[in-house]
């Protein structure tokens, strides 16, 4: 059977196209002074269908970053919160890095959000000149406080609730189900070298 170059090209395109189409947004990992690994998240992540819908819902979307060293037990984590204030139409954002350093911003536009979003988030403190990491990003649709508020509201709405803490029955039935389960999760491998 004679296989032409055109046919091979077409086959390759057909095989690779889905891979490109479903490719995950890829962050860039940055080595910072003090053997600190920071991650710069791509703006395209905020444009993912589910994420885009969630961040503009009025609820606090939490981006939970966790890093695990491949060759040791060292771990690191950081959190980014994004909420769109529907009244003032501004973005309320918060970033908490691995060492507890917190930053809050009130951003007036989506462009400003994109710019702020790309600023690297310090995630991990290494103890060697080179580190290989397994990084996970979970997108949680609402905060713990918002979940608790909804739980209390349901418990009281059941007609069985008490002003203090809600009905034990309703709480038992649905209270423990109001978890902020990730609407998306991303996994990346990274290798960072420090000079």
């Amino acid at each position: 059977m004679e296989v032409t170059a055109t046919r091979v090209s077409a086959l390759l395109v057909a095989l690779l196209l889905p891979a490109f189409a479903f490719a995950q947004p890829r962050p860039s990992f940055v080595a910072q002074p003090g053997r600190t690994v920071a991650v710069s998240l791509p703006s395209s992540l905020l444009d993912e269908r589910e994420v885009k819908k969630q961040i503009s819902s009025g609820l606090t979307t939490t981006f939970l970053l966790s890093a695990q060293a491949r060759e040791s037990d060292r771990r690191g984590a950081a959190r980014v919160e994004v909420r769109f204030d529907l009244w003032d139409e501004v973005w309320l954002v918060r970033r908490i890095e691995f060492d507890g350093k917190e930053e809050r911003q009130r951003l007036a536009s989506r462009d400003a959000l994109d710019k702020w979003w790309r600023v690297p988030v310090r995630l991990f403190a290494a103890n060697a000149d080179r580190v290989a990491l397994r990084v996970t990003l979970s997108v949680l649709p609402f905060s713990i406080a918002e979940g608790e508020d909804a739980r209390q509201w349901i418990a009281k709405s059941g007609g069985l609730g008490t002003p203090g803490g809600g009905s034990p029955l309703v709480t038992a039935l649905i209270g423990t189900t109001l978890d902020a389960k990730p609407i998306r999760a991303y996994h990346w491998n990274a290798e960072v070298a420090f000079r």
Partner: protein
Amino acid sequence: MNRARSLAATLVAIAGATLLFWLLVHQISGLWLDVALRPEVREALEQSLNDQKRLRAFDDEHRDAYRRRFENTNLLLRRLEVIRLNRAEMQQRFELTLLALFVAGAAVAATWISLRARKAQARERREYLDRVATLQETARRQAHEIKGPLTAARLELERLGDGVRRGAPQNDVLAAGESIAEELERLARFTRGFASFAAIGTPVLRPLSLRAVVEEFCATFGNAWPGLTLQWSGGDARVCADGDLLRQVLVNLCTNSARAVEGNGGGAVTFAIARANAPVALDVSDSGAGIPESLRARIFDPYVTTRRMGEGMGLGLSISRKIMLDHGGDLQLVATSAAGTTFRLVFGDAECS
């Protein structure tokens, strides 16, 4: 084998009920969530948010009020969004919790039913054995009651035959004949007792004064039972009753009382109005030795008696209660102890004939 089959049937019933319950719950559990999460609800709330924002542009004076309304609506919207995001888990938890409660409840109910069935079975067995024991005792008493006069009559007949053959004096022959007649009379009395039990008449209810009935009874039967004094404590009440049958009840009670006070060298029966208004009640109390505890629960059953063999069949209280029940009332054992016994005649609300 039966227990295993019963257990399997119970388990199948629980499983079937659980499946049906789950299907029902599954059909309805998501309903309330669906109502709250209908897209129209969300759209209306979002429209309300937009309206409040537009209004602030036109009416800056009430900006704070619009803001408050906006925040309230927004809070509601956010809560609904949290619920929407957890809808599947909430419904699942709701169904599982109800299912667990149902299964637990069914298991408790099945255990309870099984225990009750076992208890009922044990009670039935006990009652059956009691009935058999009563029948055995009755048969013994009947045999004794019949055997006594028959044996005596047979012996007298033999004596009479001997006397006739020997040409005994006429007085001896006559005495033997009288003795046979006495024994036959004992047999006749015995059968009359059964006949009266079988043929208790339907009461003909007439308006009566209990005082008049009891006073007449005391006057007529005052000396009927040696060692027993009849006392009327006063008062009165009107009832609809059959005077003859009522007298029979009082006779039966007093006959028992007479035997109960025998050991004390005599005693008294007191009649007293316990309740003058409907339902009227008359207490008949004696100062006898009381009824043994083992007999109290069955005291109104036929053939239950404290008397020795040959002294009665234990039908008196049974007949008396039947008479009172026929009156629409009852005969109750109110109290009994070593100091005495009180029976209560309760008259129902039956109307006079």
